[in-house]
């Protein structure tokens, strides 16, 4: 059940170029958050729309959740000015996230691009807790944009690619996938639309889950801002990313 809450900022730090990590405290983390769900943040009253940000980690006991965000425009820019001790207007948790109960995976491949990496962290943690083997492939623009490599290392094997070759593999995450053939049964991917398209094409035949992004209005499923079309066989013709997603099976939606 979604709540609107003024959450306390417990911690806020820069973790990579343009990239910040924030830990929030409140009741929302106690509502059984699933990996892949997001919070919808009102940065301050200067803004008219909320910003959707994925949940990167949850500590139910401590009542905290972690988010990571990249400075992109005005809203994320203003967010950087918030300080420990400030309050933040948060609506969440939003969406459905990864269907943890239905998963039949034994060996999972996580594929994250840039600021698509964070939700895969919480997912990876939960998979490992369930005894599932996890391999991660993470892509970043360049070395200075890398974050969470250590955290993913704790979950299993990690491959890093950078667009400019300043760290790890020089190129795209998709370059790494052929080498991993046979080592996973299910993949989980989050990142820019072009990457998701390439990944789902490359991994046709595998069981997969994609977490996709779109500009949102309400973030609760009421305004039809965030739809994604479905294949012709689907009678409804669309899914709402904020309510039905943001996680979909690649065959469920048309990217």
């Amino acid at each position: 059940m979604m709540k609107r809450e003024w959450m306390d900022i417990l911690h806020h730090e820069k973790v990579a170029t343009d990239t910040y990590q924030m830990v929030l405290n409140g009741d929302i983390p106690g509502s059984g958050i699933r990996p892949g769900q997001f919070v919808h943040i009102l940065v301050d009253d200067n803004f008219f729309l909320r910003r959707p940000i994925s949940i990167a980690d949850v500590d139910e006991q401590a009542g905290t959740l972690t988010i990571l965000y990249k400075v992109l425009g005005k809203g994320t820019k203003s967010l950087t000015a918030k300080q420990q001790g400030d309050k933040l207007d948060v609506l969440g948790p939003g969406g459905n996230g990864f269907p943890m109960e239905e998963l039949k995976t034994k060996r999972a491949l996580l594929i994250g691009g840039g600021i698509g990496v964070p939700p895969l962290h919480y997912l990876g943690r939960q998979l490992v807790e369930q005894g599932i083997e996890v391999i991660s492939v993470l892509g970043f623009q360049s070395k200075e944009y890398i974050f969470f490599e250590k955290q993913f290392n704790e979950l299993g094997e990690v491959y890093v690619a950078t667009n400019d070759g300043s760290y790890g593999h020089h190129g795209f995450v998709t370059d790494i996938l052929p080498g991993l053939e046979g080592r996973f049964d299910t993949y989980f991917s989050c990142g820019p639309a072009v990457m998701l398209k390439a990944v789902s094409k490359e991994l046709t035949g595998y069981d997969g889950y994609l977490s996709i992004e779109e500009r949102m209005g309400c973030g609760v499923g009421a305004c039809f801002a965030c739809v994604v079309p479905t294949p012709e066989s689907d009678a409804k013709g669309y899914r709402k990313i904020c309510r039905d997603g943001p996680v979909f099976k690649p065959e469920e939606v048309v990217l």
Partner: protein
Amino acid sequence: MSNLSINLPGLKLKNPVMPASGCFGFGKEFSDFYDLSELGGIIIKAATGEQRYGNPTPRVAETSSGMLNAIGLQNPGVDQIITDELPFLGEFDTPIIANVAGSTVEEYIEVARKISRSEQISAIELNISCPNVKEGGVQFGTEPDLAAEVTRQVKAVSDVPVYVKLSPNVSDIVSMAKAVEQAGADGLSMINTLTGMRLDLNSRKPIIANGTGGLSGPAIKPVAIRMIYHVYQQVNIPIIGMGGIETAEDVMEYLLAGASAVAVGSVNFKNPFACKDIIDALPETMNKYGFSSLEEIIGGAHR
């Protein structure tokens, strides 16, 4: 205690605050946040004859004190709305207003006829002002003759009162209002969104895939107040006012200008409790400014 109730054609409202069409879906999502029976009424998302997918995404963009949207009338079609959405709304003790859209007069008639026969619907809001569809919609909203024609035809088939929703993208809002009043409209609903655009400096293209979108939010409130103020002086049918309402003070401003009730739109996205918060604050706010009933406030700026 302040009396918040108001009776309008077809609508016995326990308070004058309703969510605006397209900003509240068919109510289901917001029923997770509070009891919808607290609302004065609910204006549901536009219905068309057939299911529509709407425009490509992105469909929304933020602006200074507002937003653009170009949903493009996405909806499951009138038949499915009647079978799948209205029964849920019937559980609440609040009147439902159906927003009716179309590309042709025939489509308007078909949708209005069907949905007005539904038990759950107390009134129709005739959407002749949607700026986000290529055909229909907006032409009906900018030419008085066309507006009058579609109003007349819809009135002829509707079992419930018809409120015509006016577009602000016109040179002369009073002529539009008078034309639809003469054509038999039971009330007016104003305003729909102002047509606007934002460009992305990186892609050098409009942010909204559709190019233009409808501007809503506090940015447009002064335009809405002006139009309602002028229309109130020239027509005798009630007005449901909307555009940028965020607070109980805003509601009072609309009522003083001449609205008899209001709709709260895009601010529901900022605060899902917006309608409830406004309703809760209204009695105290009325009190603060020396009013004890809505009748005293409505049109107060003209006395």
